[in-house]
C-alpha cells in the first residue's frame, strides 16, 4: 500500500493538539514542522515559544525549545543565535509568537531585532486579539471589532488604530523577508507553507531577519464557528490585512 501522508518527524509522537476547535495554531505548527522536516533542520533547531497560546509549541514540536517571557522572544532568540556563533556553532533559530506578544508588549524587542538584521526567523500568529487571556483588544484588533475590552467595538477616537505588522517589519533595513499569509482555505494553506519555507531558507542563507505573519482564526473569542471564522478571514480581515509579500530581498535585487 502506498503511504500518502504521515505526521511530520518534527511533531512529537502521539501528541494531540489541545487548541480550541477551529483554532489555526495547530495547523500553523504543523506547517512549521513540515518545513523543518523538508529543510532537514530538526536536529539543528532551537525554537523560542512565547507567552500566549503559542507557548504550547513545545508540547507538540519535537525540537529543542525554550519559553520566553511575554514579548521577549526575539531578544531570547538573539541571545541563542549569537551565543552559538560565539561557540563556533551555527544553529537554526526561530520564534513562534502571538501578535500581542510580538507587536504589543514585545514591539521594542521585535523591531530592534529586525532593525539589527538578526539572522533569525519569526512566525507571528495574528488572531486580532489576546487569545490566551480570553479575547481582549490587542494591537491588531480591527476597527469595529468587539472584544472583552472594546465591548462597543474598536473605534479610532477612543482606542486608536491597529498595527499592520508585516508592513512595518518590511520597512526595517535588516529585514530580508516579510509576508502575511492566511490558513483560511487550501490555496492559502499551500501558499502559507511556501512562504514559511522561504522565510526559513533565508535564515539558512544568512540574509537577515525573516518574518511571516499568519492571519489566524480564534473561533472561541470571536464567538464564531470554525467555518465562519475562516470566512471572516477570507472576506473581511484579508481586506484590512492584505495577504502578500511586503519585502523579499531577492526579488527587490
Amino acid at each position: 500500500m502506498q503511504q500518502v501522508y504521515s505526521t511530520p518527524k518534527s511533531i512529537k509522537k502521539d501528541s494531540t493538539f489541545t487548541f480550541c476547535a477551529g483554532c489555526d495554531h495547530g495547523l500553523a505548527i504543523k506547517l512549521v514542522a513540515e518545513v523543518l522536516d523538508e529543510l532537514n533542520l530538526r536536529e539543528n533547531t532551537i525554537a523560542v515559544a512565547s507567552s500566549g497560546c503559542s507557548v504550547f509549541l513545545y508540547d507538540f514540536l519535537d525540537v529543542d525549545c525554550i519559553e520566553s517571557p511575554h514579548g521577549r522572544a526575539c531578544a531570547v532568540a538573539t541571545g541563542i543565535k549569537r551565543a552559538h556563533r560565539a561557540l563556533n556553532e551555527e544553529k537554526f533559530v526561530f520564534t513562534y509568537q502571538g501578535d500581542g506578544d510580538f507587536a504589543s508588549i514585545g514591539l521594542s524587542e521585535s523591531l530592534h531585532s529586525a532593525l539589527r538584521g538578526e539572522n533569525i526567523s519569526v512566525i507571528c500568529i495574528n488572531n486580532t486579539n489576546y487569545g490566551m487571556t480570553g479575547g481582549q483588544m490587542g494591537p491588531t484588533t480591527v476597527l469595529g471589532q468587539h472584544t472583552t475590552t472594546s465591548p462597543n467595538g474598536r473605534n479610532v477616537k477612543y482606542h486608536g488604530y491597529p498595527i499592520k505588522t508585516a508592513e512595518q517589519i518590511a520597512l526595517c533595513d535588516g529585514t530580508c523577508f516579510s509576508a502575511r499569509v492566511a490558513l483560511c482555505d487550501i490555496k492559502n494553506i499551500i501558499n502559507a507553507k511556501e512562504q514559511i519555507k522561504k522565510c526559513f531558507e533565508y535564515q539558512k542563507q544568512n540574509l537577515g531577519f525573516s518574518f511571516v505573519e499568519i492571519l489566524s482564526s480564534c473561533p472561541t473569542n470571536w464567538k464564531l464557528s470554525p467555518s465562519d471564522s475562516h470566512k471572516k478571514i477570507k472576506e473581511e480581515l484579508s481586506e484590512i490585512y492584505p495577504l502578500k509579500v511586503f519585502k523579499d530581498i531577492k526579488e527587490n535585487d
Partner: protein
Amino acid sequence: MNQKELLKGNIAIAKAAINCGCKCYFGYPITPQTEIGEYLSNEMEKRNLAYVCAESEIAAINMCIGASSSGAKTMTSSSSCAVSLMQEAISYACSDELPIVIVNVMRAGPGQGYIYPSQGDYDQSTIGGGNGDYRIICLSPSTVQECIDMTYKAFYLAQKYKNPTILLLDGLLGQMAEPAIINDNPYEEIDNSSWVLKGAKNRPSRQINSLEPNQTKLNSHIFKMFEKYKQLEENEQDYEDFMCDDADIIICAFGSLARCAKDLCSYYRQKGIKMGLFRPKTLYPFPNKKLEELSLRAKLFIDIEMNMGQMLRDVRLTISHNAKISFIGKPVGDWLKKEELIDAIDKILKENYATSL
C-alpha cells in the same frame, strides 16, 4: 602575566569575565557601571564573541536567557533602577535554572536617585525583586582584587548551581582604581551537556520552560529548586572575620563600607575596646552559621550600612536571641567619614556601657 596593575573595579570585572571564558555580554548604558560594557565591546568584538548593545535592559537580560540556554558563559551589567527592569526575566531564569552573571553597580535612592555610592539594593538582590519563590546567589566584593576573584566565583557558582548570580557593588568600588592582579580563574569548568539546547541530535528534544499547568509538577519543581538553595546555604556561605576572636563588640558591614569598618576596629582597639568586623562575602547565602557562633561570645553588634537597614534584617534573624544589635545607616554613602562613624559608635557605646567608658 599576572602582574599588579592599577585597575578600576569596573574594568577589573570586565577583564576577569574575559579571562574566565565569558562568551556573551548584553547590556545598556547606565552610570556608574558603563565602563564594563565599553571595555567589553572592543575586547569581545576582537575575539568574535557575542556582544549586543541591547535596546533596553529588558532586552539585555532576555538575550542572556537565550545565550545561557545555549551553554555559553553569559553576563550583563547594570545599575539599580535598570536592574529593576530585569526582574521578570531574573525570576524566569531562576525557574529555568539558567546560569547568568548579573553585575549590579549600585547607585543611590529609589527611582532614578543618583550615582552616589549606596547599598540600597541588598534586599532586591538577596530576597529577589521578581515574582515567586526563588533565591539569587549574591556576592559582595570590597576591594578591586575581590571584584576579580568574585567575578570568577560568580561564573562558577552560577554554573554549578544553575542559577543567576549577582555581583553586587557600589559606585565607589566600580569607579575606584587600586592595584590588583588579574590572576588565573581557579575554578573548574562545569559540564552542562545534560541540559543545554543545541538541537535534538542523537537525543530526545529538550524544553526549557517555567510555565507549568500541572499543579503537582509545579510544586515539585519549586521544592527541587529549594533543595538546591538548601545546598547553597549549607556549602557556600562565605565571610571575612577581622579581629573577631576576642571581640566584645562586632561591626557587621559589607562591600566597600567594610573597609572603613576595619579602620574603626584599629581605632577602638587602641582605646582598649575589643572591636572586630564581620563581613559577609556572600549576601545570599547569608553567612549565618559563623555570625551565630560569634554571637555566643560578643554581646553587642553594630550593623553599619549605606541604606536604611537591609542586611540588618538578616543579622537580626540570626542573632537577636543572643546579642544586642544597634544600627547605623544612611542611604547615600558620600557621608562616610571616619569621624562621623566614630561619633555614632561612641553614642551607641555610651548607651550600652555607660560606666565602663
